[in-house]
């Protein structure tokens, strides 16, 4: 070391290759996930929120939908899986990144040679892990307590996989983009949660579309949550449930189309609006 250092004082650092974005993305994912699971109170509330809602709604609305053998609890399981996936991406990142922007985390990272892509990869993988766990927990409860039937054929599992992946990625990108909206970490929870809660009510998570005015359904149709929930219902309620959809069909092709569009739109929004600095940092 000493000999080379004196002979070539600057040659070594100049020629060493920069670490790859993908590898750093995985390293970011590892520390993000570690940090998330070490914040015990946040972990408990993140995962218990949809569970509590499921048990609550499952207990209040114990009946079934006439002539189909489908129960309300099954309906809520599918809806809450959609809301859980959306929450893990949109709410989690929208608030989390707004906080990191204010507390100096982002500023510190921006001063290092870590590329922005690695930061995004880390966030998305982190959200995938959280969402996957949440879906697993909700499914377990649905199966054990509410007679939810896991899909028996491969094609439904494939549908579950692509709706999940498209949905979680679109929600994560939207969350990253939305994190620039709050003016401060303090306002982030309110700014991000309000539209998310409204979206859940109009997207068929809690209230079936049959009870909703058409203009609300039209508004919900612009956003990804309605389509995610529709995709999940197709997996868990089966063909018998299709009659309760607004068009008497699960429209899986449109689900893919809308979620895909949000994925692309979310990526564009991220790349064009993402700021490392807070608004007050000039």
């Amino acid at each position, binding site marked *: 070391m000493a000999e080379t250092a004196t002979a070539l004082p600057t040659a070594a650092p100049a020629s060493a290759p920069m670490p790859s974005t993908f590898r750093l993305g995985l390293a970011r994912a590892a520390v993000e996930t570690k940090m998330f699971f070490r914040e015990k109170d946040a972990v408990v509330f993140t995962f218990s929120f949809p569970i509590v809602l499921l048990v609550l709604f499952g207990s209040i609305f114990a009946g079934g939908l006439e002539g189909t053998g489908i129960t309300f609890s099954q309906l809520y399981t599918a809806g809450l899986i959609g809301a859980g996936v959306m929450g893990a991406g949109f709410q989690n990142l929208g608030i989390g990144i707004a906080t990191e922007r204010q*507390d100096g985390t982002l500023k510190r990272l921006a001063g290092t040679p870590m590329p922005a892509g690695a930061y995004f990869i880390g966030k998305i993988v982190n959200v995938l892990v959280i969402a996957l766990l949440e879906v697993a927990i909700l499914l377990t409860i649905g199966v054990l307590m509410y007679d939810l039937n896991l899909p028996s054929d491969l094609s439904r599992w494939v549908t579950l996989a692509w709706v999940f992946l498209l949905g979680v990625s679109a929600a994560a990108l939207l969350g990253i983009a939305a994190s620039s909206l709050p003016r401060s970490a303090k306002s982030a929870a309110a700014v991000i949660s309000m539209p998310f809660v409204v979206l859940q009510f109009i997207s068929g998570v809690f209230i079936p579309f049959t009870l909703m005015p058409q203009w609300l359904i039209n508004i919900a149709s612009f956003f990804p949550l309605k389509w995610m929930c529709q995709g999940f219902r197709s997996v868990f309620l089966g063909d018998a449930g299709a009659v309760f959809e607004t068009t008497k069909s699960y429209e899986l092709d449109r689900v893919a189309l809308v979620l895909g569009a949000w994925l692309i739109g979310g990526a564009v929004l991220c790349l064009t609006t993402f700021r490392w600095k807070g608004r007050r940092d000039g």
Partner: protein
Amino acid sequence: MRKQYGGVDAVAGIDLDIAQGEIFAILGPNGAGKSTTVEILEGYRKRDAGEVSVLGSDPGKPTRRWKSRIGIVLQNTEESPELTVREMLRHFSAYYPDSRDPDEVIAMVGLTESAGKRIRHLSGGQRRRVDVALGVVGRPELLFLDEPTTGFDPESRRQFWELIEGLSDDGTTIVLTTHYLEEAEALADRVAVIAQGRIVAEGEPSTLGGRATAKARVTWSEGSVETDTPTETVLELSRTFDGEIPGLTVTRPSLEDIYLSLIEPS
């Protein structure tokens, strides 16, 4: 390394060159343009006009390669990660192509005993050392320190100064902003005083603002006098008192005196 620039936003016109390997301190009251100046050099802020070159590149267009050659120690980060000191250093070291060994850096800043502690549980002073460790783990050629010892007790400050001197001896160029004049005096090869967005003085701490040639003040129990020839004054007094002069002090203006006179709005 050369930096030149002028005519910047809150910074009305600053022209300075910092040589490779030196410790350069930027002094100035709050709001004088210190942090803005440094943030432009760090690549955080864009300048409105002027020419800047840091390590041969324009910091307004930072590349990953360029960022890997500088280290930044920010002021007041409030992040409280659930990672341990060692995990944080290991993770950040992966960002750089030729990083220092994380454990060596932890030892360098005196945190070996707290290496397994989560950063959330560290004291303010210990966190500051983590900040410094993160700033140097990439083996930077140029290190920026923004008010690094604010909130340190005197002993930690001395230890910190030794750490900075050690880095400088290894060839790291250091640009430091500080409120503490004794810090600038202890560390810096050269200082610049910024007031109202302009450099009002620049030079070695011992000669800044004509300090070395300023009048000395001779004080004794019955009076005091400002003079260019303090030795003569003392000899005269010695003859008057026939030996020891009661309460004798001879002082030249401190860096603080010079600084205060420089930043006074004229």
